[in-house]
């Protein structure tokens, strides 16, 4: 029974793991110090022969207060402030800096419903709702080394797309469009799932991320597009999900 995080296959996952590691280290130290202090008090200051009388001190003197506030503030700065600065930097520099202007970004429309995911990738024309769109069910095919830009919607209830190996998670909400992005660093098959209770079959709302090297991805996309064109039916385009990427309509 060893303990480890799922394999990290993402460009920015180390930032998440780093924050978790920093927290484990610092809160571990704080907890250990407090525990040692508590156990020392319980051991040495327990009532026994020769120690029947507690010290009549209210801890209301100025130095007591300075001590309490100093310890609290040192912990606050060392853990919370440090972490908040680091997180703000990571959010604004990475996780929440969406690749809107990045021509290399692969855009995927994600539609969640009870209890499946559909993923729609714009074909070479870069537009959604055209014959070359590739739609996959419970399988997200992505290239390694390019930003994957997801926009999500839900048809029925709130779901949450959970990508453990890419260290991210974003809700899919009826009536709203949410977004997230990540970048795979290694080819492979990784699981994706639903993190938000969405009904009785929530546990079955599992899918696969297939990350392919650039050449492999190009081959796969070519085959998938050809297949899409063959099956394209303008009258049924709405059934494939999807919406206008820019306007969200």
């Amino acid at each position, binding site marked *: 029974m060893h303990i480890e995080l799922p394999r990290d296959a993402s460009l920015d996952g180390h930032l998440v793991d780093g924050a978790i590691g920093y927290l484990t280290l610092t809160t571990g130290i704080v*907890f250990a110090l407090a525990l040692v202090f508590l156990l020392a008090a319980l051991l040495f200051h327990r009532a026994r022969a020769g120690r029947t009388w507690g010290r009549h001190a209210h801890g209301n003197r100025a130095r007591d207060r300075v001590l309490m*506030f100093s310890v609290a503030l040192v912990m606050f700065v060392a853990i*919370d402030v440090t972490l908040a600065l680091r997180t703000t930097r990571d959010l604004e520099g990475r996780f929440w800096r969406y690749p809107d202007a990045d021509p290399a970004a692969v855009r995927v429309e994600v539609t969640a419903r009870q209890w499946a995911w559909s993923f729609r990738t714009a074909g070479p024309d870069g537009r959604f709702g055209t014959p070359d769109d590739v739609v996959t069910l419970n399988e997200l095919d992505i290239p390694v080394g390019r930003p994957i830009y997801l926009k999500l919607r839900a048809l029925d209830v709130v779901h949450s797309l959970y990508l*453990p190996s890419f260290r991210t998670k974003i809700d899919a909400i009826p*009536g709203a469009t949410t977004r997230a992005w990540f970048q795979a660093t290694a080819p492979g098959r990784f699981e994706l799932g639903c993190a938000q209770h*969405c009904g009785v079959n929530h546990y079955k709302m599992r899918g696969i991320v297939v990350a392919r090297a650039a050449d492999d991805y190009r081959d796969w996309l070519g085959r998938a597009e050809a297949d899409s064109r063959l099956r394209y039916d303008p009258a049924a385009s709405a059934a494939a999900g999807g919406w206008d990427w820019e306007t969200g309509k």
Partner: protein
Amino acid sequence: MSAGKVAASDEGELPPEPTGFWRRWVFSLDHKVIGRQFLFLGLAFLAVGGLMAMLIRWQLASPGVPVPVVGKLLFGPSGGVISPVAYTALFTMHGTIMIFFAVTPILIGGFGNFCLPLLVGARDMAFPRLNMASFWTMFAATAVLTASFFVPLGPPEAGWTAYATLSTAIGAPGPGQTLWVVAIYLNGASSVMGAVNYITTVLRLRAPGMTYLRLPLTVWGFFLTSILNALFVPVLAAAMVLLFFDRVLGTQFFVAGTTPGAGGDPILYQHLFWLFGHPEVYILILPAWGIVGDLLAFFARKPVFGYRVTVGALVGVVVLSCVVYGHHMFTTGMSPLLGESFMLLTMIISVPTSLIVLSWLGTVWRGAIRFPTPMLFCLGLVFTFGVGGLTGLYLADITADLYLHDTYFVVGHFHLIMAAALLMSLFAATYFWFPKMFGRMMNEPLGKLHFWLTFVPLNVVFFGMLAIGYQGMQRRLYDPSVYDFLKPLLPWNRAVSHAAYLLGAAQLVFVVNFFWSLARGPRAAANPWEVGTLEWTVPSPPPHHNFDRIPIVVRGPHELGHPAARALGRDWLSQTELEGDTPPPRAPTEEPA
């Protein structure tokens, strides 16, 4: 109480005690009886919610295996196996029952009712009839909730948070969810009645000399909790009313998606729910903090270390708790500025919280610590709250939350607070006030056995959940082995489940001790713990009107190790005793010999 002059004021004649069975034990106006009613109701639901936890753990440890003994009875149609529908109903009702129908009635309804008037030196609550209405509204809520198990399409299955649109007709068409909404609304009405009563009692009925800074921390805890209840339970009620309209009248406040014409907003529900839901955590933990603050001082035989700082910190937590709820919604795609603000505000709570913990550590330091059962449970709370509080930082941090949100790490974190720390405080309070409530002592060896059999498995359970969540397992999965990356976690889930069974079985020690002591425990003296707060100045159990004469308070609640007490041959002074260095606030009437 041993020798010592006592200050008390004269009062007029008191109305007589009711003698009929119904007036005395059922529709009683006496806060002590109502407190016990809440206590028994809550304990019954604690047992039900606990047994549901056992079934949830059974499914996670032995997926698809028929439940032994009760399986055929409870899950007959599926051959004794817990079905996905049953599992979903179980975790929904486990959460609902534990938070709204177990911990709330036991802690706030039970101990709040019993303690508040006694601890502030009052003869009853400010509004005894409202108090009775509060209990019977809660009772009605439990009846409605129980009914939701027995309706077509089954019990509610939207989780205890009942997120829209899963909780609307889209995800939960049956009447079970509607009954759930009504039950939560009635439960909230009961809480608000209690809150109004508690606030008024503390504001208006404190005994002469009982200044705010002489209140026991227990009273501060219940007082501040009541303020939060009065402010935020109505927000939950609003959410329930809108959800009820959506379900029954066909409105669409929370409905969106493919439903034709739906222009509502499911996220609005989350805002309303967590605007209440985060203060709710503090609503429950504040009384626990108060109780533990007092009891650590009582059993360390020392005053509370930094009483004023602690009171300030409690108030600080109350204020901050109103502005942090957004950390429950980091993954809903909220605007970056809003997200970062909620993150920072949440982290600021760690300052008053660490002051409270430092006060606990300073209180036991250089004491003459005694270890009766209530003290063991208090120390258990210090430990579990420490871990629970620190793991909260992981979830306050948005980067870490991207990964940990909605995993078992969250489950472990909030159980360490809402289950572990609160259970510790409930048991500490029960062992501590049992003599005053029922006039008999509980059995100490059984109490200590109960503590160790609870404390050890409890930590295995919730540390195990943290470890499972750290490794990526989501919440509320009927069968985690659907995911390949979660398959290796089965041994972890088994270990947690086995510890949970032990934890559940250990509570039989408590049940036996409780009922045996109720019938056969040795008679309790007025002040078995040798402490100075007002409830211990009256007999155990207290007379109908608590105080024959309203006491006059001359000092704070934690005067232990007081030098002036040496002359009396003990180490504590009561809040009403005139000896000592604190002059009385007003001319006292001398007790006539």
